[in-house]
């Protein structure tokens, strides 16, 4: 079967700094890839190049048989098929949780209001926030806000969801509720790319871990392999350091 996503030789430069120096990988349907790597390595830039929130300088991104990077690609339609979950949630401040989830349905998918409400409530229920539908983001905890933003992405029926450090802005006691939702999604067969430092999550949920440094993929493979016997010494070193910091209990 063809992969759902193909990323081929992506390059991105900011000024004189080459942030991505030729990144390629593939992702099959239903797979979860966890991307790890030191700060400033280009992980966020890579995710943003996939749905062209940032335009890559070179290289191609394919979502099934559609070239995302083609100049004439219907980028808004493509973006509606790729969920994006941000580190600092970015819920629409002036809208309730329900309206946050509904906006894309009504404005992008042109769904009727009633149908959109039903759909949005389904996803809010799925992330355990049915009774917070009427609350504004300012009245929700960080963990709740992030779960609403996951519901907002899910409601669009995306083929793929990109998570950019979804728990890094959360107080430690709120991280679990978000990771649980994500683990459940992976189990339900959602295709995901997750940038995270949560090694416990990476170990138990990822089908594959990608270790990036200085704009390139250093090594990728199944978690057991990377944790037990990485091919590149640097991978093992980084995993040990990050596991000490964030914990990777099995």
């Amino acid at each position, binding site marked *: 079967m063809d992969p759902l996503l193909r990323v081929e030789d992506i390059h991105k430069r900011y000024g004189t700094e080459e942030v991505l120096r030729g990144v390629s990988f593939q992702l099959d349907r239903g797979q979860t890839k966890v991307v790890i790597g030191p700060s400033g390595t280009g992980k966020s830039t890579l995710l943003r190049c996939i749905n062209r929130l940032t335009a890559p300088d070179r290289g191609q991104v394919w979502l099934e048989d559609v070239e995302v990077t083609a100049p004439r690609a219907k980028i808004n*339609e493509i973006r509606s098929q*790729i969920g994006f979950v941000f580190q600092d949630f970015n819920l629409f*401040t*002036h809208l309730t949780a329900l309206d946050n989830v509904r*906006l894309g349905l009504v404005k992008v998918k042109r769904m009727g209001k009633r149908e959109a409400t039903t759909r949005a409530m389904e996803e809010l229920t799925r992330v355990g926030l049915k009774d917070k539908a009427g609350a504004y983001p300012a*009245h929700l905890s960080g963990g709740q806000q992030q779960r609403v933003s996951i519901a*907002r992405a899910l409601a669009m029926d995306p083929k793929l969801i990109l998570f950019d450090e979804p728990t890094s802005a959360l107080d430690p006691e709120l991280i679990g509720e978000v990771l649980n939702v994500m683990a459940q999604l992976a189990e339900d067969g959602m295709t995901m790319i997750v940038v995270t430092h949560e090694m416990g999550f990476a170990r138990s949920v990822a089908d594959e871990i990608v270790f990036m440094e200085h704009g390139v993929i250093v090594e990728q493979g199944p978690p057991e392999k990377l944790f037990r016997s990485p091919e590149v010494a640097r991978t093992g070193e980084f995993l040990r350091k990050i596991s000490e910091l964030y914990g990777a209990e099995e």
Partner: protein
Amino acid sequence: MTFNFDVSYLPQLAGGLVVTLEVTSCCIAIGIVLGILLALGRVYGGRFISIPCSIYIHFFRGTPLLVQLFIVYFGLPNWGIRLSAFASGILALGLNTAAYQAEYFRGAIQAVKAGQMVAARSLGLTRLQAIRHVVLPQALRLVIPPWSNELILMLKYSSIVFSIALYDLMGVGKRIASRHFNYFEVFIVLALLYLALVLLITLGLRWVERRLRVPGLGTAGRGA
């Protein structure tokens, strides 16, 4: 000492009041529409849009309102454009307030966090949809307090239209006073009328702001 003011002036003053309110609301309406467009042009337009918008704003903020009014009313007829006094008044005042409002709108648009636009685009909203459904609803709420100053200023500045023979409050007052030689009394009454209007506007806008208030948006530090 007597206060030389006769109730028989009131119908005339009421007529003037109507003109003042008409001029103010028309020029404010022009200013809102044009001001939002100018602000969007400055924030989101490429160089070819944002530079002309800046020039416009600097021109209207950098020259006296009265000069602008006279250009429109006395100057444009030389180019074959002849507008009534009322149209000239609201056009000049409207073009002027648009420049000031644009700067308030621009500040408010830029105060909306960048992540809001990015999140909207990530869902597949076009830039215009994101501006319309995400950025502007927040910016317009944020802009109400500074913007109310502009509305109050325009109410007061609208009095300059008496100089092109419009009988607004000021025009009517001047006509009454020059007929009865009671400048002091008439203008004191005018001042009180303007003051009452300003109070009404202030209260009205505060009510609107409260009605539209959303938690977490621009109300921090004001004791919600």
